[in-house]
């Protein structure tokens, strides 16, 4: 089975500083890959490197076998990458509706309607389409960020710390939604996560990052407590 997304010796820079070093990994279609590691080891930079938002990167990044590392961010988005960034990146001057519509600009089919799926999963958004997004709570903004990424009609959802700073009952809800998207709709997920428990429940493969390098990877079953202790405890 060929990989949906692959990194081949990718090094990514901010200015002259290397943040990711010789990154190699693959994600297969339908997989849920959890990217794990402490704060500041390069998890967010990995997401930003996929989207082409770092200053520079070398090495091959392929999607469906075709090279995309030379493409600017707005072209990469059209390959079906739905990005949910850290801090959610909601445009607070936009209404909920406009935020979701933003996602449709990256669609391959150029449709400009809010996909029905986004509203079915998040009834709160459906009832508040004309509310200013800046007025939403943290959990609601996270729902909106996911809905917006789904509006891309993505092959891959990139979720950077989706449960960060969200009250526990919503963490569970978002976990359930992600699982549903992955298992029932077959959307491939790449999730950075600090909560080991959430990661074990959700992911079927893991990528352990420490100091900008991949230190371990494999099926979720192979993620031992030893690994967690060595690379994640402070």
């Amino acid at each position: 089975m060929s990989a949906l997304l692959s990194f081949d010796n990718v090094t990514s820079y901010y200015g002259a500083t290397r943040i990711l070093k010789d990154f190699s990994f693959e994600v297969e279609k339908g997989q849920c890959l959890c990217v794990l590691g402490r704060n500041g080891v390069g998890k967010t930079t990995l997401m930003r490197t996929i989207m082409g938002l770092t200053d520079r990167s070398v090495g091959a990044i392929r999607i469906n076998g075709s090279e995309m590392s030379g493409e600017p961010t707005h072209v990469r988005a059209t390959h079906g990458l739905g990005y949910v960034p850290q801090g959610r990146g909601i445009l607070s001057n936009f209404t909920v509706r406009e935020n979701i519509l933003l996602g449709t600009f990256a669609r391959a089919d150029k449709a400009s309607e809010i996909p029905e799926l986004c509203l079915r999963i998040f009834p709160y958004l459906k009832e508040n389409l004309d509310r200013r997004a800046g007025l939403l709570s943290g959990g609601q903004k996270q729902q909106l960020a996911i809905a917006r990424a789904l509006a891309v009609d993505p092959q891959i959802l990139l979720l950077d710390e989706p449960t960060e700073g969200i009250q526990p009952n919503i963490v569970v809800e978002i976990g359930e939604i992600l699982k549903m998207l992955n298992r029932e709709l077959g959307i491939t997920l790449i999730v950075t996560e600090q909560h080991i428990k959430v990661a074990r429940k959700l992911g079927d493969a893991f990528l352990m990052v420490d100091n900008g390098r991949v230190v371990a990877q494999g099926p979720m079953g192979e993620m031992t407590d030893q690994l967690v202790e060595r690379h994640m405890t402070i």
Partner: protein
Amino acid sequence: MDLSSLLNALILGVSIASIWLIAALGLTIIYGTAGVINMAHGELIMLGAYSSYMLQFHLGLPYLLCLPASFVIVALVGLALERGLIRYLYNRPLDTLLATYGVSLVLMQGVRLIFGSDPKYLAVPEIFQSNVMLGSVSLSAFRIVVVAVTALLVIGLWLLFYKTRYGVQVRAVMQNKEMAASFGINAGRIYMLTFALGAGLAGVAGALFGVLAIVLPTMGASYVVQAFLMVVVGGGSLAGSVVASGVTGELQSVFAFFTNDTFARFIIFVLIVIFLRFRPQGLFAQAGARR
């Protein structure tokens, strides 16, 4: 001062406000969207006036068609300017300031070389040369044309920014360039189109100003100061410039009624300085991150 003369002053104020506003429209959207301080704005206005002059005297185009034609010509100049120069300087605001100042000098001298320093005049249809009575105010019909064109442009811009996909893209780029790019919006293209649009609006302003005053290579300098004041007071948004121009125009008209036009302008400038001392971000500051 009785009520009817105040009313007259207010009606005149609308006309003055429309001149402040149409000078500032193009600058507003360029500054508001791309954060570029376009020092060549006045010369783009001047180019609009000369475009109309050329079309009128060499091709015999009717004046009303000169307005859209000037828009197109100056928009193309803006497009070339953006592609050839500005786009390399987006992350360097001070360099943009100097570069556009240089462009303004080049345009001014270039026009002087081609057309000479003697004034040119735009002809308007006879109907616009008459005076119209509004209540007890006698207003030249052309002033009403200026108000109407300004109003149409503001409505058009509002529809463009709030009702079209292009508008959503522009506002997305203004708020968060990275997120806009992450959802497939080509920010470079948006900046390019917006710059061309802003330049085109300056062109229309020039075609109107060429009738209100004489057409000279140096005519831009006086309008660019006005335009900048409105953009700064308004805070860089379309609504801000509309309100700033409206208030300024009305105040100027009322002050001029009490004193004289020169003194009224003096008071306006003093008031603007005092206003900016207490609200440097302008009337409607934009919450989005400026690049």
